């Protein structure tokens, strides 16, 4: 810059500043508008434009399901999330299925199954009218190969290893005969929830722990639907399997569309962009209740919703890892924490009645396995007793009302929470206050991906929940020592690193018990044991709150048929049975309140903008030429 010419410099500077000012002004105007727009957009739930998603082109009937969970893997050997296992139900036929009316086992890929007198050899008759979508016939060899793979390859046993842990030998003497030999009797033989995959497609897979089955489309399968396309965190697209032995589904296409935001999914439902939404909040359910063309389904859920404590993460080889809080190894501390939780308030306030108060492990919907603690055994809400327990455990309150251990450090816990589940953050607020009164600090760690810290054992507490199958074997198996990861680097089937000898003995016993009543007794004993160890506390069994458009879906099967759920069934009944509605009338179901609010918001925004510019104009009146 030339020092000789201060004027030139000054002029240059002015220009430069003007430009800077202009830029700022624009930015601020833009951000101000964005703030107004945010308010307006939020207050305007929907545009009244009638949408006819179905009849968009050539009358193709598409069933679009909004899901909030992202697919963890399309490989049935790895997938454990509900959305993925639901898709697998549709892609692959299992040996048996569950009756939609009362959950008893009915033929799937197997038409018949019977045990030998010693109950150690099971013979399945494989149906001859099932075909892979590439035209090849499904044989017993495919099933045998699937099971053998899971028995010999640890990578392939990641998701469903619990089913084959007790298998000695699986053979296919003929194309229609599958023989499974067991080491010990196993009660889940009519409920093997294992997708059978085509051997000719999967033989070439090298590393089952890495292969996600999402490169080659359509994915060869024999279920009611065939996956034709998949994009992570976006959608799974399926088309009906015309040669499905039970009959082809009636829709022309089924799409699982990923919506990170529940409100966006509900707005899409109102506009008709999606046909089905699940996981509604109480406010959303109440608002949708009165809408025409929309049916809200509020069914007792098959999920439990719980707090899990880190019992000291470890692997099967005995190595400890992670950094769980050492105080949680003390059962008294865990008990105190759970005594400080008022489950009834959670059901009333957070779920607003769309849930049942949590007691035992398995939801009451499964009557034969439901167990609840007796009055003397129950850890009911009792903050005073909780305080006493903490005193006993050596965590006394200091001057600030905080519990401190012998090392003088205050008790502060980290809690993993799913950023995708609003209930976690809401319940977390209550826990923070209840435990705060006990003198315990809580820090919520809400993440999109809780899996990584969870598997690494880097948490103290966590929000936990599983869907329970009619046969509870799987959800029971995830708390056995056998489910721990082989080494700290591996992924185990374990839920939260629980390993208890007594529980394991009971687990082995119930697995070997063929008498249903006796088995149920054993399962209840397991639940009781799990309850007493205090590694987890079930807070509630949330209802399945879902809604669908009646102008797109004419009928759909719930499971159980009476007061049952639609999404995440134990079987493919809902999506297989869904029949499209005649799409002749257009949906004029825009909510008038939405429109009114939209107009009001628009007026407010315009008024504010007008006032702002009037002021600006006046203040710069002298500036203008």
């Amino acid at each position, binding site marked *: 810059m030339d020092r000789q010419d201060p004027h030139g410099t000054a002029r240059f500077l002015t220009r430069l500043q003007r430009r800077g000012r202009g830029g700022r002004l624009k930015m601020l105007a833009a951000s101000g508008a964005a703030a107004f727009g945010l*308010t307006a957009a*939020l207050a305007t739930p929907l545009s009244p434009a009638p949408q006819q998603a179905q009849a968009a082109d050539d009358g193709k009937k598409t069933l679009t399901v909004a899901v909030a969970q992202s697919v963890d893997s399309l490989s049935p050997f790895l997938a454990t999330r509900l959305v993925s296992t639901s898709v697998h139900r549709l892609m692959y036929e299992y040996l048996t299925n569950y009756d939609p009316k009362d959950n008893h086992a009915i033929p799937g890929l197997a038409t018949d199954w019977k045990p030998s007198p010693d109950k150690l050899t099971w013979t399945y008759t494989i149906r001859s009218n099932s075909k892979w979508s590439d035209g090849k016939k499904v044989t017993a060899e495919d099933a045998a190969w699937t099971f053998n793979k899971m028995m010999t390859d640890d990578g392939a046993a990641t998701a469903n290893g619990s089913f084959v842990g007790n298998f000695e030998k699986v053979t296919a003497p003929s194309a229609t005969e599958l023989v499974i030999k067991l080491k010990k009797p196993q009660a889940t033989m009519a409920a093997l929830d294992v997708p059978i995959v085509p051997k000719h497609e999967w033989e070439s897979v090298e590393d089952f722990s890495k292969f996600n089955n999402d490169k080659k489309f359509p994915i060869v399968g024999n279920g009611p639907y065939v996956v034709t396309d998949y994009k992570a965190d976006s959608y799974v697209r399926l088309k009906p399997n015309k040669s499905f032995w039970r009959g082809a589904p009636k829709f022309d296409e089924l799409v699982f569309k990923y919506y990170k935001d529940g409100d966006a999914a509900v707005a899409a439902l109102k506009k008709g962009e999606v046909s089905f939404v699940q996981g509604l909040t109480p406010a959303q359910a109440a608002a949708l209740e009165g809408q025409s063309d929309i049916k809200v389904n509020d069914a007792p859920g098959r999920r439990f919703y719980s707090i899990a404590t880190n019992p000291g993460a470890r692997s099967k080889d005995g190595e400890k890892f992670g950094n769980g809080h050492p105080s949680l190894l003390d059962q008294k501390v865990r008990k105190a924490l759970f005594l400080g939780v008022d489950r009834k308030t959670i059901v009333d306030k957070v779920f607003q009645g769309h849930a049942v108060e949590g007691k035992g492990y398995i939801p009451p919907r499964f009557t034969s396995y439901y167990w609840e603690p007796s009055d003397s055994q129950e850890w009911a809400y009792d903050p005073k007793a909780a305080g006493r327990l903490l005193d006993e455990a050596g965590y006394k309150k200091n001057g600030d009302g905080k519990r401190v251990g012998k090392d003088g450090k205050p008790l502060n816990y980290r809690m993993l929470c799913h950023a995708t589940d609003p209930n976690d953050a809401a319940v977390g607020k209550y826990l923070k206050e209840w435990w705060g009164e006990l003198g315990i600090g809580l820090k919520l760690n809400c993440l999109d991906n809780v899996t990584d810290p969870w598997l690494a054992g880097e948490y103290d507490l966590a929000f936990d929940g599983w869907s329970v199958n009619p046969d509870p074997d799987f959800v029971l198996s995830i708390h056995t020592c056998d489910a721990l990861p082989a080494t700290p680097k591996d992924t185990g089937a374990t839920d939260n690193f629980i390993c208890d000898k007594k529980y394991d003995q009971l687990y082995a016993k119930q697995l070997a018990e063929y008498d249903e009543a006796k088995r149920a007794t054993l399962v209840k004993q397991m639940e009781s044991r799990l309850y007493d160890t205090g590694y987890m506390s079930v807070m509630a069994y949330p209802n399945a709150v879902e809604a669908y458009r009646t102008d797109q879906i004419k009928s759909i099967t719930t499971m159980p048929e009476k007061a049952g759920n639609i999404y995440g069934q134990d079987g493919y009944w809902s999506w297989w049975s869904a029949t499209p509605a005649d799409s002749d009338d257009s949906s004029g179901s825009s909510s008038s309140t939405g429109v009114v609010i939209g107009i009001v918001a628009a007026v407010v925004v315009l008024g504010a903008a007008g006032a702002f510019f009037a002021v600006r104009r006046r*203040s710069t009146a002298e500036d203008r030429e």
Partner: protein
Amino acid sequence: MTTESTAPDERVPEGPPLGEEKSAPPRLGSARALAWRRRRQSAARFWREYRRHRAGLAGLGLLLLFAAVALTAPWTVGSDVQSVTDAPGRPMEEPSAEFPFGTDQFGRSLFGLVLWGSRVSLLVGLLAAALSVAIGALVGITAGHFKGWYATVIMRVTDWFLVMPALVFAVALATVMERSLLTVIVAIGVTAWPTTARLVRAQTLAVESRPYIERAKALGGGHRHIMSRHVLPNVMPLVLAQTTLGISSAILTEATLAFLGLGDPSLTSWGGLLQDARQAGAVSSGHWWYLVPPGLAIALVALAFTLCGRAVESVLNPRLGVAR
């Protein structure tokens, strides 16, 4: 490089631009008293000028109101308003005499929450703007003072930050760091400084080209002396105006981050309230009273700071006020 710029040491008696201050009457009292008198005079002059900006006054009034609300919140509403276990109402109640803005999904009074939320929003806005302007001023002054390779490198870094979408960068930062108030402040602070840096550098170049800087150098003034005693006071007006304007965008960014769920979930802020509303499904179920108050509060505070900032800017920068 030993160019750490110190905080503006206002207590130093000598006035910044030597050339302009020569005419000060050389009578009565110590140099210190003289400086203070001059400062009082210029403050009065500033206020006289500022009063002529009606929009600026309106913005200031609004700001004082919000500041009063935020500062007195512990006594007017109290931190109990955040408590979910002692919530007084039923979930999602409509506005009524008892709850002027209705209640949220826990039955807490939204009126109280909006008042309480002003504390976090204003705090983050002020600190983040201060941080970003501090970084910007430091970079701008050093880049303008040390020309050559240092300026080239640091200005390219500035350009890089300038072209990067600030929100994306802030989201990335807030994701990898722990979720706390500090994270949000840092995330906003380190993304919003490049504009300030460019403006300050330009002003520094202009100031350094004036003859009295050369005189100071001839008298043995070092880098540090020149930058802190001569350049800094001269770019101060620009920095001040920039801060005021930066606060409003910082508040908006804070609200955006909280709305995207990247704030500290245990704190009540306006953006956090919007996020809670979205998670509770208030948008699709038409509970407008959950959304409009925090949204309007964000817009109003941002507007107030903008109005003030523009008024301050035109008072401090004579070139902008020439026509008056």
